């Protein structure tokens, strides 16, 4: 059963999970700077797909 004490004990864990989520999404958004060099719409479509995937993840997950 969730109690304030449990919640307090879980906070650092939730915080580090969220931090990891932040590192992953920033790293994913930076990929075109190092890995996509084709002169077509690849970078455009990649960024759109990453943002859409993250939005779906936020929609589905509990927070």
């Amino acid at each position, binding site marked *: 059963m969730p109690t304030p004490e449990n919640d307090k004990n879980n906070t650092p864990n939730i915080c580090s999970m969220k931090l990891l989520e932040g590192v992953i999404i920033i790293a994913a*958004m930076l990929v075109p700077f190092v890995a996509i060099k084709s002169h077509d*719409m690849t970078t455009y479509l990649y960024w759109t797909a990453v943002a859409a995937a993250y939005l779906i993840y936020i929609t589905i997950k509990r927070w």
Partner: protein
Amino acid sequence: MNVFLYAFAGYVVLGTVIALMAMKGLKTQEEYYIAGRKVSGVVSALTYAATTYSAFMMVGLVGLSYASGVGALGFELFYLVGTLFLLSYYAPKVWEMAKERGYITPGDMIAERYGREVAVVMSVVATIALIPYLSVQLIGVGLILDKTSAMSFSYGIAASAILIALWAFLGGLRGVAWTDAIQGVFMLVMALAAIYWVNSNGFGDKNFFAEVTRLGELLVVPNSVWTPVRFVSLTLPWFFFALTNPQVFQRLYIPKDRASLRRMVILFGFFGLVYTVIVTLIGLELRTMTEMGAFPRVEDRDAVTPTLLGLMPPLLGAAISLSIFAAAITTANSIVLTLSSMLSRDLFGSERVGTGRVIIVFLTLALTLFAYSRPNYIVELSVLSSTILLAQLPLILGVFHFKGGAKVAGISTLLAGFTTAVVLSFAKLSPLGIPASVWTFIVSFVVFFAASRLDR
């Protein structure tokens, strides 16, 4: 009387009727500034979106995509994922604290944690940061209406200022949220109409994906415009926009329950993604058309959208011009209302709605005069606004993650961050090759932690 003026007249009447309807029962600051914390998820999402997405989208971002290519999309989507990342963690905490403790302004949370004096300084810093940004909205709208012969520059500014003050003055946040919701939908529909027209006229019998390869280095990052340093410099303040900009932070207080708050964040995300993709695609399509010889080459990137509007059928051009006008108004009246709440409540300590209404009038006059004077440095100032607001970030994160820090830490962080942002930006300095926004970020956090030791 041109087509735009007919549409504009209908827009004014509709918005004013909504603002008058929203007036009922606005007796307390809680009702006036945050609609009594009773806003539905859908309306919260639309007012969040309409407040965030200003005239910059259909004017500035179309031009930026045209001139600099795909990096403009990355810059804007970094803002969106940053906002989703931050709100999915902090929004429920902020909403709960605000409801439990009766916060009305962003300064209420800061005052409780660091002391009232810090909220006073924060209200002044936020006002200095946001007035030039607001004036740029007015100037942008005035110029676009003038260039498309819809209305002269002076009348455009005057009309914008009157509507900004009137709708916020009458209906408070409830009026602003209702008008934002309708205008937000209108902005999205008109952006869709614009991309449809551009696509039909530019690529009716051609394949855009084949033609776009003409843009070469504009389709990759980094390129000659989007260097890594420039990208970080512009993206960093925007990544934290959801926490540092008071007009959007205050919107975290307004949803009626947790489910509505969640709906607000998710629907805003979908709005933002669709709007950003459409707007940047318009810029890339127009640039491709320029390379194909089907659209004039435009050297001034802010003139791309006016040039496009000039080529469209009058009715469509008028409707899109009106949507740009609406985008500016929805952003500006939300900022004016939030600043009036911070100045009346945090700076002057007033609990009266009337004080806020007087401040709305004075703030609107100030930004109108600023817009009419069109100082040379106004663009630099408006760019600077998001960098200045970064100085608040350690204080806001400190509420949730740090135990130390009180009055000395709060005030010195705000002053150090503000000074760093202003000095480096005006002197155009990048010590060690690091841009002003990153320095502001670093200095604010270093000063916050260092000064927190003095507060023990």
